């Protein structure tokens, strides 16, 4: 199995890098496991890793229909933050942040977690008040937040249009210094290797096509690589939640699938050292180590399972970027793509036992599931191992909608395209 150290780098450099071992095995499916995790994205892989590491459950398979990282874990804009307002969200994402801070060390795999700070700009006095309130809520729960004035923002982000004649003049911003970015592919690969070396089978090109049932109870799955039985079946398929749960006869989840697009520019010299978000619309931008600007904005705004969007949104995103950084007007776009988001009705996730006996469900990640990857797997593993939620995910139930205890961070109501 691939191990990385100064010595192994040296040895492999001398032998022309031809003797590296694969980071995880490619086993054939066994007839049965203690736990099957459907979905080899960040959440499925971290779930398998923490099942093995925290709960000693190693007779586990992760079933992925394509290759590892082909879903949203390899499509996001890599922003990691915990700047939420509501206590259930702050605690969960703060736990995730703490796991991120030790993740490269824990996995012995460099996930390039870069705490470069996330700066949310404010353009109106009301937004400054909202940021002060959010910052206080974060600090109250033990997180970090700093309210910046206009001068401090100007010093921190020299490329920003700070002129008084800007369409949305900048008044200040809320900075979370511990937030930042991580290398998304490395997160998938690191968790995969960590799970594999603890005995988890990672089965790629293994699409779940149906559920095996004994009465109500889920006792396994049918796949493109045959039937596999399990004591517990956990679903973590993000944007495909609707399609997979329909195979179990469930088509009334509080979820809509929508497309989110992302963009990368050609490489530039260092210009933006943080993640900066626009408050006059919805836009977030950072600069990768290669120099490309990585950015995105809103959803296209209609139900879709196609991993591509339309042009009106592209135009909107570009115009918002230029409202912040007019100096980028002549920079060329290198690539753009889309990913299918599992948008929940209140913008918060679901991590819960059920809805059928023998089944566990993890979904509703909206725009923000990458930063949740460690805590989502950590809490889901606990939920699967113990058969009940950990206090950190106890509020993320499926029945909170019917019971009227929503976790609606933005107060937008049941309109997923606005979350």
């Amino acid at each position, binding site marked *: 199995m691939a191990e990385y150290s100064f010595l192994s780098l040296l040895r492999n450099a001398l032998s022309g890098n031809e003797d590296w071992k694969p980071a995880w095995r490619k086993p054939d499916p066994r007839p049965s496991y203690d736990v099957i995790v459907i979905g080899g994205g960040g959440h499925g892989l971290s779930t398998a890793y923490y099942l093995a590491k925290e709960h000693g459950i190693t007779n586990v398979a992760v079933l992925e229909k394509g290759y590892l990282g082909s879903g949203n874990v390899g499509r996001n804009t890599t922003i990691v933050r915990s700047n939420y307002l509501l206590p259930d969200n702050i605690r969960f994402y703060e736990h995730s942040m703490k796991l991120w801070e030790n993740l490269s060390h824990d996995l012995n795999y460099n996930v390039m977690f870069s705490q470069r700070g996330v700066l949310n700009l404010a353009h109106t006095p009301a937004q400054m008040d909202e940021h002060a309130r959010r910052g206080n809520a974060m600090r109250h729960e033990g997180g970090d937040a700093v309210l910046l004035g206009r001068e401090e923002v100007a010093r921190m982000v020299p490329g920003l249009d700070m002129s008084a004649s800007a369409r949305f003049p900048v008044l200040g911003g809320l900075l979370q210094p511990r937030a930042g970015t991580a290398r998304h592919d490395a997160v998938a690969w690191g968790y995969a290797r960590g799970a594999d070396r603890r005995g988890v089978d990672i089965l790629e090109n293994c699409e779940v096509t149906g559920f095996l049932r004994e009465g109500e109870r889920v006792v396994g799955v049918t796949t493109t690589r045959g039937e596999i039985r399990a004591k517990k079946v956990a679903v973590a398929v993000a944007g495909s939640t*609707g399609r997979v749960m329909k195979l179990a006869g469930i088509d009334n989840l509080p979820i809509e699938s929508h497309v989110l697009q992302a963009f990368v520019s050609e490489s530039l010299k260092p210009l933006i050292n943080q993640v900066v978000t626009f408050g006059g619309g919805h836009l977030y931008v950072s600069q990768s180590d290669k120099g490309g600007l990585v950015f995105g904005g809103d959803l296209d705004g209609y139900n879709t399972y196609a991993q591509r969007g339309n042009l009106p949104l592209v135009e909107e995103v570009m115009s918002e970027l230029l409202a912040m950084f007019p100096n980028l007007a002549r920079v060329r776009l290198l690539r753009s793509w889309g990913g299918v988001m599992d948008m929940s009705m209140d913008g918060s996730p679901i991590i819960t036992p059920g809805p059928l006996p023998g089944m566990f469900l993890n979904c509703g990640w909206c725009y923000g599931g990458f930063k949740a990857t460690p805590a989502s797997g950590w809490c889901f593993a606990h939920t699967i191992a113990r058969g009940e939620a950990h206090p950190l995910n106890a509020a993320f139930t499926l029945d909170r909608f019917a019971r009227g205890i929503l976790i609606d961070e933005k107060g937008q109501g049941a309109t997923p395209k606005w979350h």
Partner: protein
Amino acid sequence: MLIACPYCGPRDLSEFTYQGDANRTRPNPMSNDQSAWNAYVYERVNTAGDHREFWQHSGGCRAHLVVIRSTLTHEIKSVAFARETAK
């Protein structure tokens, strides 16, 4: 995406506003059947395939439309005035 408004003809996506899933049935406003209201407000079939949905031609004639569109390919199969087809 081009949507063929029955009044204005084919127009660009940017002229339209999406108004969501048209498969739901609103309970009688006087009803206090909690599960029917929960289904109407929060539950979605989230179809992968032909999806019946509301759009408004907000940048044109402002008509409310019912569109059947594939959520897998974005192909639009039919467009009609909502007042004629909506329940």
